[in-house]
């Protein structure tokens, strides 16, 4: 079902995606090497943000989460891979019954598609975001 995309041979492919915990702040920038990683990355990170390289909105999401005490995994996607990645993220989202195209930046919490910057902002203002993060194990206090 998934289209095979050419591997970028110049990137080291981690044998196992790193599990996101607050005690390991290293290696949060994962450059996307191939498609099969995505589902793994989503399920194995409490919080992961997919965004375009150099995108300032991704930066905003990251700073907001960091400000809350969360250490999100951030996956920066190259321009060429954008469409492929969005499709796949869309499939992950569709698996939960969520319709509609995924846009960058895309935030996954607890292995599930949460939404974009709009959703994150709105959820934070209404106070919904922090409990969801705690439930996913992204916040410890």
């Amino acid at each position, binding site marked *: 079902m998934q289209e095979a995309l050419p591997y970028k041979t110049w990137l080291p492919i981690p044998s196992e995606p790193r599990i996101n915990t607050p005690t390991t702040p290293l290696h949060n920038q994962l450059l996307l090497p191939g498609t099969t990683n995505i589902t793994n990355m989503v399920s194995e990170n409490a919080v992961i943000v997919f965004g375009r390289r150099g995108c*300032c*909105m991704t*930066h905003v999401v990251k*700073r*907001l989460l960091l400000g809350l005490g969360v250490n999100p995994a951030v996956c920066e996607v190259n321009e060429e891979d954008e469409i492929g990645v969005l499709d796949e993220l869309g499939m992950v989202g569709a698996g939960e019954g969520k319709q509609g195209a995924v846009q960058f930046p895309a935030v996954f919490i607890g292995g599930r598609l949460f939404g974009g910057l709009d959703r994150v*902002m709105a959820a934070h*203002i*209404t106070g919904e975001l922090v409990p969801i993060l705690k439930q996913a194990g992204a916040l410890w206090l």
Partner: protein
Amino acid sequence: MNSSSTHFVTSRRIGIYEPLHQISTWGESFKTNGCPNTSASTIAELEAKLDNQSEDTSHGTPGPSEKYDQEATKPVDKVQRRLAQNREAARKSRLRKKAYVQELESSRVKLMQLEQELERARQQGLYLGAGLDAGHLGFSGAVNSGIAAFEMEYGHWVEEQSSQICELRTALHAHISDVELRILVETAMNHYFNLFRMKATAAKADVFYMMSGMWKTSAERFFLWIGGFRPSELLKVLVPQLDPLTDQQILDVCNLRQSCQQAEDALTQGMEKLQQILAEAVAAGQLGEGSYIPQLATALEKLEAVVSFVNQADHLRQETLQQMVRILTIRQAARGLLALGEYFQRLRALSSLWATRPREPA
């Protein structure tokens, strides 16, 4: 019967004329002293007077004297009802008068503002529409018209805002029901949401115009943050107006303040990063400012990001407003919205004052 009908006629004269007399004299004192508190106590006094006069059973409508004999035998509560209607009509008349004077005052402020803007536009000569050599100024026709349309719409928005503020003020002093107050609150909220929609459209026409807050008055621009007011500032203006708050409300407001500040900080940091990227791109000559057509796509892409920031900032303003209204009772929300509207009115008035201040001749 004769003696009672005579008694009738005398009291009737007093009954009809006195309320009107009271209204006109009250109106005089209102003109010289526009303080709503004074009017409120005057209303109370007048109501008390009318209540006392209800002891008489004689406040009938004018008519032939034969009617009085018939009316003397009608039940007392019909007379009471007429009395209440009279009170109501008098009260409504007072409120209308109040609203009219408020409108006059705000129109005066607006007039000063308009004069100032006209002066500014004359000097700049940028957006006066037809007759200008748009090519010479480097603008395309499309950009001009989008912004010109926004400026006109915004003028109407401010007018509508002034009348809504008057309505809120009147309604809060008149102690209308919560159901009616809710309608006013929702109208005011939708009005703000309309502005955000207008801004989103205008941002596509000229985002730098939006970022610089060019449509606002000078004092408002002093407080500018990503094309509008800071959501955290909004809370600082509102909260002191809302006492008393329940313990739960205090907690909720505290949380909202914190979330708002965090979201604001995140957006600010993102904005700084964008500025850095843009500055580096301009310094390196990478944005196609020359005639590199392929680079134009990159430049446009980067500027698109600025549009996103304006939209996200407005989204945050909207969410903050909505959450505030969720936390508060309807009456508190109405008071808060009134305070917010008055705050911006005062800022605009301050700008006019500043612009028209006496200056030393050059």
